[in-house]
């Protein structure tokens, strides 16, 4: 393992200190916790919070700021934060209009966030949530019942964050969340496994010429291994699976997010994006929103994922387009 770290058990703490040092204009840390919270107050608006294990940077702390998250709860690497930390985030983020939690579908995250909701309700804070399960690769995975939550979560942060900024109520945000999540689907491909600092070796290994489709962001198994192929062929496989899942119809409107998993250069991400664009155009789809870069990584995994959102309402596109004040959107 070759990494720019100090003590492996201190990586999350050291990273959060760095985040706060570099972006003190936008965020601060609740002392003694893994909670990153935005600096600007947003009185009487619903506070959106998210989080989970660390190792997915810039998710989730990078999306804290006006127009997106009010707070991010950063757990240990690939491990859910505990309910007391989530409760701190809820208490500090609440502006009197309630708190909405965006949870990726992992058993640990779901249990811990749900527990925090119950604790907050004992203190009369209104809390609601959505569980994001956008990864179409597999049903039931190492840490998940149902489908996993991956990069599509960032679209959920953006759209709900914009709605909250717009003054939507907790009930309205819940309704919007329930509408958008079934319209967000993701599929990825890995070229190499991620090495968690405290583990010291990759979670899985692929041969020099091998790739795996559908790997999870903690290295959970995907659905097929094969020889590396040109970007066009990878795009073809991923788009065809998404086509099947969405049942593409010509003239439909979509947004796309090409997401690097940590060690994949932007050069490759843009090559892949170009190939995806051609395939979607051939399907007769309108792609009204595009985003490329590292949003939901898996430490140093090489590979990328493609997320599509079917824009059933024009409003969703407006919410995607409205500017934010965050580190990483």
């Amino acid at each position, binding site marked *: 393992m070759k990494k720019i770290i100090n003590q492996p058990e201190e990586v999350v703490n050291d990273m959060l200190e760095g985040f706060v040092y570099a972006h003190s204009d936008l965020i601060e840390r609740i002392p003694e916790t893994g909670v990153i919270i935005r600096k600007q107050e947003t009185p009487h608006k619903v506070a959106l919070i998210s989080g989970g294990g660390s190792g997915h940077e810039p998710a989730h702390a990078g999306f804290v700021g006006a127009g997106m998250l009010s707070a991010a709860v950063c757990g240990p690497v690939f*491990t859910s934060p*505990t*309910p*007391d*930390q989530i409760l701190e985030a809820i208490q500090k983020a609440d502006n009197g209009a309630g708190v909405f939690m965006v949870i990726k579908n992992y*058993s*640990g995250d779901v*249990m*811990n966030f*749900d*527990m925090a909701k*119950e*604790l907050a309700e*004992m203190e009369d804070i209104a809390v609601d949530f959505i569980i994001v399960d956008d990864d179409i690769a597999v049903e039931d995975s*190492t840490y998940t*019942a149902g489908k996993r939550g991956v990069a599509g979560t960032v679209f959920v942060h953006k759209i709900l964050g914009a709605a909250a900024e717009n003054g939507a109520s907790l009930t309205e945000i819940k309704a919007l969340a329930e509408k958008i999540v079934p319209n967000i689907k993701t599929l990825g491909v890995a070229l190499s496994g991620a090495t968690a600092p405290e583990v010291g070796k990759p979670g899985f290994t692929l041969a020099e010429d091998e790739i795996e489709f559908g790997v999870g962001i903690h290295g959970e198994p995907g659905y097929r291994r094969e020889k590396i192929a040109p970007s066009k062929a990878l795009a073809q496989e991923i788009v065809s699976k998404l086509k099947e899942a969405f049942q593409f119809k010509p003239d439909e409107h979509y947004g796309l997010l090409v997401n690097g998993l940590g060690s994949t250069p932007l050069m490759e991400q843009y090559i892949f994006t170009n190939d995806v664009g051609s395939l979607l155009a051939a399907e007769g789809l309108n792609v009204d929103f595009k985003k490329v870069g590292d949003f939901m990584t898996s430490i140093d995994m090489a590979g990328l994922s493609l997320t599509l959102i079917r824009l059933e309402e024009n409003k969703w596109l407006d919410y995607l387009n409205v500017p934010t004040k965050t580190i990483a959107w």
Partner: protein
Amino acid sequence: MNVEAVKKWMILFTEKVNQNKAYLSELDRAIGDGDHGMNMARGTTEVMAALEAKNPATVADVFKLTGMTLVSKVGGASGPLYGSAFISMAKEAGTTDSLLAILQAGLNGIEKRGQAVPGEKTMIDTWQPVIKALAAGNLSEQTIADAVAHTKEIKATKGRASYLGERSIGHLDPGAVSSGYLFETMLEAGVTND
């Protein structure tokens, strides 16, 4: 229910978990991720420290402090599950003195959090028979031991052990074993319905 007896219960539970932490982790290594003993030992030890520092005055406060400490210190799935049990028990203890009602609330909390039902090889398979026996007025150490031992026969369909399917048969469920310690020490501490 007597607050001193409940505190004694928590002390005895902590001692029992700590005495058996290697055994609990060994059970967990067979069908889970091998950290149940360490996690529960750390969590209950923190509970002791918290009870000593804050010296809660009511049964509800003892349970609430226990639950909050366990959720923040145990981690994994056991933290939220035991935490939910104790926090649900705290809520119930605020309105009733009935041990039966309080334990039933604890079980409901676990079932809700874990989305599990009896017969899935989880801690619920200790809680449910214990509560049934308590309601029937015949809860004994033997009832508890039988309930725990029965988890050996069950195929896991919830939790990490469920990935093993049939291969989970023949192993005790670690959560059921630690729950067994909870109820054994409840009897030892003399915590009863009156």
